[in-house]
């Protein structure tokens, strides 16, 4: 399962909040003296359903997820993970630079993975069985994009909008628009995040992932050209302290895709869900 191998690799450069921080001399400017970082390591159990046929969790190892998360900020440059989002642990860190920083909003250059890739050969290898629908299918890499993020801050919520091009950084050509809203509900020692997102994937992005080109045609796979798609996402993510160094994290995510991807021979469903429970150690 290359998806999970990719997840493991991406998690190694993934992230979170701030443990060691100097007080900034001027926090209203981008080029301040602020330096902050935090490292975390964690383990979680995840049950995920994939939209791709044959990608199943067959053994305990498929459910386990190891995370080594690192956050860093210096003079407007940042590496961060949006830990309120369930797929952060799968897609890794975001790298960016703050272009404009105001009290209520911010504009960043951002580079991140928008879609996790998968290698059908690895999926078959790790499943240790024949998966004819995936046999001979080319590998799909991660959709690494570079773009602009506008973020709006409110007291207990945050809204962000990304527009990113994938072409310069990944084999998945095309572009992505991602709108995301997160609302925090503190309850006793819990932080509960209620999240909703909508992501638009252009024609070439979807065709790269679920399209079937002439070289991939088989008796089970006819040629298929995919078009643009829209993903809607609803999530609940909750975190509470266990001790000064450990947190408990629980997440539930439901995705639904609109578009013609269900016509693809390799797509199983337009629904994808994720349930996770895990702990993180904060260094």
């Amino acid at each position, binding site marked *: 399962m290359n998806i999970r191998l990719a997840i493991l690799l991406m998690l190694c450069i993934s992230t979170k909040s701030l443990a060691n921080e100097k007080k900034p001399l001027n926090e209203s400017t981008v080029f301040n003296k602020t330096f902050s970082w935090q490292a975390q390591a964690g*383990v979680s159990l995840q049950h995920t359903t994939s939209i791709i046929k044959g990608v199943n969790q067959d053994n305990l190892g498929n459910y386990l997820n190891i995370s080594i998360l690192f956050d860093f900020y210096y003079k407007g440059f940042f590496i961060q993970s949006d830990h309120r989002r369930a797929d952060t642990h799968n897609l890794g860190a975001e790298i960016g630079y703050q272009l404009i920083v105001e009290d209520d909003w911010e504009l960043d250059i951002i580079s991140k993975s928008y879609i996790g890739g998968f290698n059908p050969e690895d999926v078959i290898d790790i499943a240790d069985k024949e998966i004819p629908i995936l046999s001979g299918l080319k590998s799909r890499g991660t959709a690494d994009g570079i773009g602009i993020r506008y973020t709006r801050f409110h007291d207990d919520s945050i809204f962000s909008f990304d527009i990113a091009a994938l072409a310069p950084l990944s084999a998945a050509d095309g572009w992505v628009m991602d709108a995301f809203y997160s609302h925090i509900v503190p309850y006793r020692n819990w932080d509960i995040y209620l999240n909703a997102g909508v992501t638009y994937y252009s024609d070439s992005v979807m065709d790269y992932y679920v399209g079937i080109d002439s070289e991939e045609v088989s008796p089970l796979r006819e040629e298929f050209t995919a078009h643009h798609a829209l993903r809607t996402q609803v999530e609940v993510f909750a975190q509470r302290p266990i001790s000064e160094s450990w947190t408990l994290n629980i997440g539930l995510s439901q995705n639904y895709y609109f578009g013609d991807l269900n016509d693809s021979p390799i797509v199983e469903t337009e629904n994808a869900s994720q349930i996770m429970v895990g702990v993180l150690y904060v260094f």
Partner: protein
Amino acid sequence: MSSKLGNGTAWLKFKLIGSLLGLFCVSELNAQDNSQIAQSTTASEIIFTAKPANCVALHQGRKCYASVSLQWQAPQQGNFCIYQKMSNKVIQCWKNSNGSQVQFEFESSTKLEYQLVAIEKNHVLAETAIDVSWVHKASPRKRRWRLF
């Protein structure tokens, strides 16, 4: 080849999980040793303890919630009260008792101290405290860094 890859990945995972579990156990044991019970014992054998003695919030400055127990024991029977030190709020009083405990819901963003007082003499016999700590330090740029 495939099973090697699968087993290798699983082995790496289990090894890392083992390390994390070890880290968890050590850090938890240290935490328990240091802060789970705050105890005040005077020369006259008065015991006054808070359990747990530390409440952990997710973020610095946030209110911390915990079910806590204050337990006390005195060498002789008498009338005693437990007060919250700064507010002088009465937690509970006892008549003709030489020991008891009270459970209540702790709710504070800062350390709170408690006093065991002998009513007749209005004398503070012992003090104990419940500390508040946190996982994540407060950030001056918390919203900009996508942290509440």
